[in-house]
């Protein structure tokens, strides 16, 4: 993002977490409230990134292992004669999906609670910052008029 920009910038989705990273603009006279907001957003972003990157990698990894073990049980190799990668159909994968979901249930519960809390806090702080800025602008306007 260019140096002169006064806004946050958002980037393409991350390869692992599928979340879009944000670069936050730090204004020269950042009020404590604004700093709290920015830090909350940065923390939330980092937390989300960590969670999803790890989660998606684990999913990919476990899926591979599952496919491998199932193919082995069937007596097949990962690649058949023509060199194509052997795959399992959707019904066979269903067991894996069910398993994975139940294994990670508690993790998701924890994450949900966390996310909802953060989301509300950040939005509330945004509201406060917006209000503060509006009041500041009104005061400035009044001063200019006089």
């Amino acid at each position, binding site marked *: *993002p260019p140096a002169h920009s006064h*806004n*946050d*910038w*958002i*980037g*393409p*989705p*991350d*390869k*692992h*977490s*599928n*979340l*879009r*990273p*944000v*670069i936050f603009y730090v204004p020269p006279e950042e009020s404590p409230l604004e700093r709290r907001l920015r830090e909350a957003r*940065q923390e939330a972003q*980092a937390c*989300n*990134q960590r969670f*999803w*990157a*790890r*989660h*998606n*990698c*684990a*999913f*990919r*990894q476990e899926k*591979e292992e599952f496919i491998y073990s199932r193919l082995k049980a069937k007596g097949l190799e*990962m*690649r058949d004669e023509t060199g*194509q*990668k052997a*795959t399992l159909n*959707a*019904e066979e*994968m*269903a067991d894996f*999906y*069910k398993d*994975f*979901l*139940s294994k*990670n*249930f508690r*993790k*998701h*519960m924890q994450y*949900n609670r966390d*996310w*909802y809390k953060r*989301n509300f806090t950040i*939005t509330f702080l*945004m*509201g406060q910052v*917006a209000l503060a800025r509006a009041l500041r602008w009104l005061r400035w306007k009044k001063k200019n008029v006089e």
Partner: protein
Amino acid sequence: GLFVWRLKGAGTRHIPCHFGHLCRAADDRLITFQYFNFLRRMYVTQYNKDLSQRAKPKSDPVASPFPELQQLDREKKVIHKMSPVSPVHQPWPETSGRTELRGVKSPAETEASATAARAEPREDRQWKEMKLRLDELPGILARLSKIKLTALVVSTASAGFAMAPVPFDLPCFLLASLGTGLASCAANSINQFFEVPFDSNMNRTKNRPLVRGQISPLLAVCFAASCGVPGIALLTLGVNPLTGALGAFNIFLYTCCYTPMKRMSIANTWVGAVVGAIPPVMGWTAATGSLDAGALLLGGILYSWQFPHFNALSWGLREDYSRGGYCMMSVTHPGLCRRVALRHCLALIGLSVVAPVLGVTTWTFPVISLPINLYISYLGFRFYRDADRSSSRKLFFCSLWHLPMLLLVMFTCKKSVLDKEDKGDLLAKGESHGRAMEIRLP
């Protein structure tokens, strides 16, 4: 600064996760797998494009995996773009918005496609300034409120209004439709506000405004409030308090019960079905001012319809749900999923028979609707027995045209309002209704 570099580094170095080396090794093998997946998806996309051109009245904001028609236009354009693209690259082969049966985009694919994508300048792969552009605002708000889905919700409410056995009152109808539309916008916006990280991880929903940072969460909430409050007020004051209460309750049910429940328990599907059933009930109460058996019947029909529709759709989205942490029947209780779909297809037949009994329609309705109801039940049975992708898709597509057709037939078989015996009653009702309207609207 530091944060950015760390991310960028992660991108090129490949992985901040433990299973990095395994992921990388798996890549090559996965690429051929993805190629076949992609070819399959290409076929499905073209196929679906033709089938999904018609917009159908669909009642609801049941689930985030719900086909969002707002994707339809964008994806149509994307489908055309797909041919010049290299095979390994999987841009957005999100089949047209109606179905995301192939909506699976495993992370490994992202990697394979990301490497191919770097060569291609995609607008989406660039860094964007997070500034709100006023000229983009209408489009953003339309996507935030899932405007097309809202339109379908409003049309089911209109169906409820039309089926009510009272003389048609245009101002009331318009107010009810507007109020319902606003309430639906509010509910959808809050839903998107809650689900940002989950939406980013699912193929079908990753282009939503909040996910892409086109609008701030604060603005989304303000928009929701500025739609919801006037909407409910309009319903309560301009139509009647019962409709207003139903509208408010529906918003609550959708945002505070259904949305969190999606990640907690499979019971969310039943809650979502109620959410979808309420708009026609609202339409009916807007017209008559009371909760009659007819209203409940109409709600019941929509409630039952949700199950074959959603269960068939969710059958193809199991991978995304599993990875995203959504508790859906298709993942955790597949047998139940199919049983429930079949059960409710049959229930539709039963409800169609109840309609004339309650005096909502004439007896021609169950007769005429029997073929389509039998057909969807047949597909439901096939889905139950075969439990595979093709039967789930057939059932889903059938549900898309089944509902509008059923509602249309219902309307044409509506019991005439001017039945001689009831004429006196209805006139009186119409008058008092009109008078009530005059009092409210000076």
